[in-house]
């Protein structure tokens, strides 16, 4: 069983790289070679990845959320899976490489540093924590995808303004669609993040009676949540649109990344569990 997990751990970056390669080739050269089959490659990769996560949960008797490298592999899956669903629902196929690259990034780091932990702190076996982490990860996937579409919107906006009718112009969907995709992803991300915060608020006093509200992770997450909340409300009430909303989405993503990096690698926070 361990050997199977080790093998899939190495296989996953290869699968994600292959899928990325196919999506990238299709983006660059178009044609009919991989127009449909690329989705199958992504599906197979996600299937293998889901099996890997289930195997780990069974073998190590805890969901893979007990340290940052376990969380990274779940995040890689979550980003890929969210994109897969989005592609199925919208049938917009030209943006895959820009999102799958995030799955590659998270999975490679996870593959390199993940450990097979059987013994974990009791606090990490809580069901509430499981719900908190999974909703937070889905929330982060949502804002990652929102930021990617936001960046693509800004690039295409500039290209059209400056009469640059290259690959980006030819392959990407319209500005209106990119804006909508970015917004919908942000709304889903915001909703999941809200859920994660609610569960966290319920679970936190039980798990850590001495926690502080000035914890950098809490401040960072609250800031991200607030930013997305303002952006979504402004867009909903028609005050903000286009560039301004997508820029906010990108800024929110950058703050989320910085906050995660700071709390996990630099500062002392109750969110660092290993």
């Amino acid at each position: 069983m361990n050997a199977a997990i080790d093998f899939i751990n190495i296989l996953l970056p290869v699968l994600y790289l292959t899928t990325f390669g196919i999506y990238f080739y299709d983006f660059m050269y178009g044609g009919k070679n991989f127009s449909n089959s690329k989705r199958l490659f992504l599906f197979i990769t996600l299937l293998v990845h889901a099996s890997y996560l289930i195997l780990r949960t069974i073998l190590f008797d805890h969901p893979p959320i007990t340290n940052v490298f376990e969380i990274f592999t779940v995040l890689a899956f979550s980003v890929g899976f969210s994109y897969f669903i989005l592609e199925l629902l919208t049938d917009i196929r030209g943006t895959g490489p820009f999102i799958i690259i995030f799955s590659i990034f998270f999975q490679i780091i996870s593959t390199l540093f993940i450990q097979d932990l059987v013994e974990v702190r009791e606090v990490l076996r809580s069901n509430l924590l499981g719900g908190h982490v999974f909703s937070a990860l889905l929330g982060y996937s949502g804002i990652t995808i929102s930021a990617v579409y936001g960046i693509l919107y800004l690039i295409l906006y500039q290209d059209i303004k400056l009469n640059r009718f290259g690959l980006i112009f030819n392959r990407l969907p319209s500005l209106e669609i990119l804006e909508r995709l970015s917004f919908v992803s942000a709304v889903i991300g915001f909703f999941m993040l809200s859920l994660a915060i609610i569960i966290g608020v319920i679970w936190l006093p039980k798990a850590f009676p001495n926690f502080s509200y000035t914890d950098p992770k809490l401040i960072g997450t609250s800031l991200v949540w607030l930013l997305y909340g303002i952006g979504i409300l402004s867009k909903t009430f028609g005050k903000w649109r286009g560039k301004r909303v997508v820029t906010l989405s990108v800024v929110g993503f950058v703050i989320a990344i910085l906050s995660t990096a700071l709390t996990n690698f630099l500062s002392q926070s109750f969110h660092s569990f290993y």
Partner: protein
Amino acid sequence: MNLAAVTINHHTAPVELREALHLSAEEIAGFVQDAKGKLFNEGLIISTCNRTEIYGIPVDNKVDYNQIQKFLVNKKCVSNVKPENFRNYTSNAAVKHLFSVIAGIDSLLIGDNQIYHQVKDSFQLADELMFTGYLTKRLFDAAIKTGKRAISETEISEGAVTVSYAAVQLIEKIFSSLNKKSALVIGVGETGEIAAKNLKERGIGRLSLTNRTIERAEKVAEKLGARILPFNTFKNYMHEYDIILSATSSTELILTKEDIKNSMKRRSYSPVILMDIAIPRDIEPTAKEIDYVFYHDIDSLNIIVEQNLNKRRDEIPKVEKIIDEETAAFFNWFNSLEVAPAIKSLREHFELIRAEEVGKNINRFSNEDREKLEIITKRIINKILHQPTVELKRISEQGQNSNDAAVKISILKDLFGINNIDEEEKH
């Protein structure tokens, strides 16, 4: 195969001459009536604004290209036509040329798939006029297959290659769906009218027109079901439109940057597309500096057109490969028409000799050996004929060189006197 083709097109003749030799459906009917039996047994005539092409199976070997050309020129009573204004093709080259035409790689606008429908219509007309025969019907199927493959297997028809379609392509990169958008066309001369028509065809939600001469605007608006805005007050309503397309013949600016700025404020900076397809330009180009204003003129649209044309040119080798494959497939079929009867005649000829000789000498063999005699002599004949049969099948499957097949069949028939036998059998 003795298919002959005579063509006059944009490669060989100026537009005046092409126009002069253009044949309407009625004229094609008259042409066919006169040419059938005199020049051709069966055939096809394609006549569009860029080409007039005559394909046919000549009634005999005496019909030459000059006769076909003269026939067309006399029919249309056109002078000043030089031989170099025509191109002539025969057999393989004629089939290949027809396939190139239907696949769009011989068009003035490379990949123009309008020609596909025009060729299809021409075949239908020939069929209605009973000008088609067994060969041209098969040629029609092969041509249609080639055209379909070129469109579906390559990108020869992808992308906008005219300014008006490039404008639509650009609009569709900004707005996802035109049916919820509104457009205002300023100036409804020829260019403005075409642009308005394109927008209507693409399903624009609301279309308004404005023009200095109100009568002209009314005429176009009636055709397209559009609203009319008075020319002297249209700026007051500009903010209501997501797309503003200007195509007037004015020598002065119609819309300044200030006008656009005011309009943008009134529409809360909701994105707007300004398409200036007038020469000289109608809209102040610095309007593009305003946020959410997508200003484009003829030059920027021409960039899209040129890029798409280059992409289509890059697809030509792929289309040529399809044409080669389909030409080979067509000649496989055609050669098999000649080869199969030749093989049959050859076998029958040898079988006749064998049966005669066996019949003459059968009494020299005992009853037990007679069956063996039949088997052995048949085996000898089969072995003798194996190589010629294989060779004939090979040249028929090899495709395009029908002359090679015809020569070999002819030699074989001469050597064994099969022609004489066929003739005797007929009598």
